[in-house]
């Protein structure tokens, strides 16, 4: 293990939030068995009281998880100075077999946490907490993911050794190897950008539809996730080339470096926010609207759809700006 301050901070964050999620899901199991709002028994009152603690603790833990995702990537980039062959976060993540799985688990947990937070916000608006069962069911599903994430993060940090030989992003994002990263890098930039702008059109149409009709919201969730994938492919195959002004540098992680004025954070923040909001609105759209939320829930979901579309618009705007200001000409 490398005793590096951000590693200590991230380990602490992983332990605290996984601990909170596991404790809360133990409570969730109890709640699902006994929850009965009509009852006035002491056990029901205790359960109701305890939901306040669990909700606050979970909001806190999920906020920590979201911040930890940013810190994790930022730190991986900084640590690349310690490994032979590493140039950016890719090298540091590749220095252990657990690196990329830990990152993917963090991203998956980010989406799960966003959905839970959205459900919690909606639920708090109803006088009878109608989504409680749904919310705590989701929590039980998230607990294994949180445990896996904490386990992978700690395994990754324990596995890191300063003398590891690793490979840089140029190795991973080349078009001649049969991996998803290579497929993305090998995509024709013109086609990738076409898909990006076309996809954005679909997102806007979907958002307009989902604002009006409740039935279209699950569909918008699917569209958001699809656009998220298209956007990442466009970053790897085209947008990064424009930012680096280099026709063969495809890395989506070098964008986060100081050399490119942390441009990646500006690019990814609205994209992740848009995808999380869109997917959460879509998933909540599958839930039948309870009577006590007849007004509040559709209003919140509509607002989430609008915010999600705004996030995607922000991403497209930032990407377009990068292309317009770049000195590289890829498409004649």
């Amino acid at each position: 293990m490398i005793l590096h301050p951000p590693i200590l901070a991230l380990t602490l964050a992983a332990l605290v939030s996984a601990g909170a999620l596991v404790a809360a899901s133990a409570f969730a199991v109890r709640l699902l068995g006994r929850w009965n709002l009509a009852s006035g028994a002491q056990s029901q009152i205790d359960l109701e009281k305890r939901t306040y603690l669990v909700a606050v603790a979970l909001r806190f833990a999920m906020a920590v998880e979201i911040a930890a995702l940013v810190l994790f990537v930022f730190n991986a980039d900084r640590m690349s100075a310690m490994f032979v062959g590493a140039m950016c976060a890719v090298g540091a993540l590749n220095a252990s077999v657990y690196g990329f799985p830990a990152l993917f688990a963090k991203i998956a947990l980010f989406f799960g946490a966003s959905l839970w937070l959205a459900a919690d916000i909606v639920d708090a608006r109803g006088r009878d907490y109608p989504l409680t069962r749904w919310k705590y069911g989701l929590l039980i599903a998230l607990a294994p993911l949180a445990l896996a994430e904490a386990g992978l993060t700690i395994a990754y940090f324990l596995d890191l050794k300063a003398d590891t030989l690793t490979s840089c992003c140029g190795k991973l994002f080349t078009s001649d190897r049969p991996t998803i990263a290579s497929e993305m890098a090998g995509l024709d930039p013109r086609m990738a950008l076409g898909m990006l702008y076309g996809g954005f059109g679909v997102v806007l149409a979907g958002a307009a539809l989902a604002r009006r009709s409740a039935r279209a919201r699950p569909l918008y969730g699917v569209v958001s996730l699809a656009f998220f994938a298209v956007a990442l492919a466009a970053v790897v195959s085209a947008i990064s080339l424009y930012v680096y002004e280099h026709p063969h540098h495809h890395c989506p992680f070098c964008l986060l470096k100081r050399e490119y004025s942390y441009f990646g954070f500006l690019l990814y923040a609205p994209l992740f926010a848009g995808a999380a909001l869109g997917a959460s609105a879509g998933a909540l759209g599958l839930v039948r609207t309870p009577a006590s939320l007849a007004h509040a829930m559709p209003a919140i979901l509509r607002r989430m759809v609008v915010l999600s579309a705004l996030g995607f618009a922000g991403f497209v705007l930032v990407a377009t700006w990068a292309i317009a200001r770049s000195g590289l000409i890829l498409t004649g």
Partner: protein
Amino acid sequence: MSGWWARQRYLLDYASASLWRRKGRNLVLWAIFAALVFILGSVILFGSAIRREAALVLRDAPDVVAQAMRMGRHDMALASDIAKLKSVRGADRIEGRLWGYLYDTSTDANYTLQTPSAHAPDLALQKGEAIVGEGVARLRKLSEGKHLFLVSPAGRLLKAKVKKVLSPESALVSSDLVLVSAEDFRAFFELAPDQFTDIAMRVRNPSEVGTVSGKGALALPHYRFITRANMARTYEALFSWREGLLLAIATGAILAFAILAFDKASGLSAQERREIGILKAIGWETSDIIRMKLWEAGLISVSAFVAGMTLAYLHVFAMSAPLIETVLKGWSTLYPRFALTPHVDALQVTTLAFLTLLPYIAAVLAPIWRTASADPDRVMR
């Protein structure tokens, strides 16, 4: 949305007034939190500043250094070996270096004696001349034109006129440095004319450094080849490790603080209990009280964090971190006096926030909830 903001503002208003009503107790907690942030912040800021300094210093180091080895120990390099290295393609500017350490009994300090490189004409010296570092000049009260006297372990005397005192900007590497001519050096340490301390090489193409040092190792199998990248990584790992070790020890302090915060938040006075009872009786909800209490915790922790961080910044960059420097950078009589270049980045601040705010908030959540969920009739009775 505006209703939400207004609500938060009222809660914040109430929270700050409530903090002020119990200022004695809260001030203690605040001061301890600020002190904790100050210590951890100093470690983090100093650690990363010194890593930057080391990286800057290494920028001018030779690409490859070759050291002769004998029975696993460092041995003298020979002029014939330098000739062999010259046949390695890609390497240029190969030179034997003369440097060594001298323990000076009169000042109880270790000096680094060295001869200037042939490629640094501004440092060229005649026999009987010397250039000294800022630390040596300070300790020996030397200035330009004065004479420096050194005695070797074998009893040989060196008398040299100080030609120049090196500027303090380069103090990190040159504080304990004494540059003398090769002739004086050999006479002082009784070295044969074909002996050198080690060999320095420059490599024309930076991406060939590994290959060139590999070829060098083939030509001279009894030599150890160290590249600059190796040294940079070693320094990075060393300082990170020291910094991390200090923080790991400080985990005990963080834990102690979290327990203190938990205890403070749990122990409610009768007056506070009544206050919460009244709030609930006049219509506050449990969630409102939780929010108000979280505002209190937020006000204490964020203001203490900012205060501690500011103090740490001043401690490290204005005062060169007197409280922690010996642990982090090592020590010696002649340790250079240098001011670190002020530099703070988001990674450091986020790391520190994770290490201090996170345990604090985690520790006070449960007590806050217990306070907020108490029944009004029970607490007011």
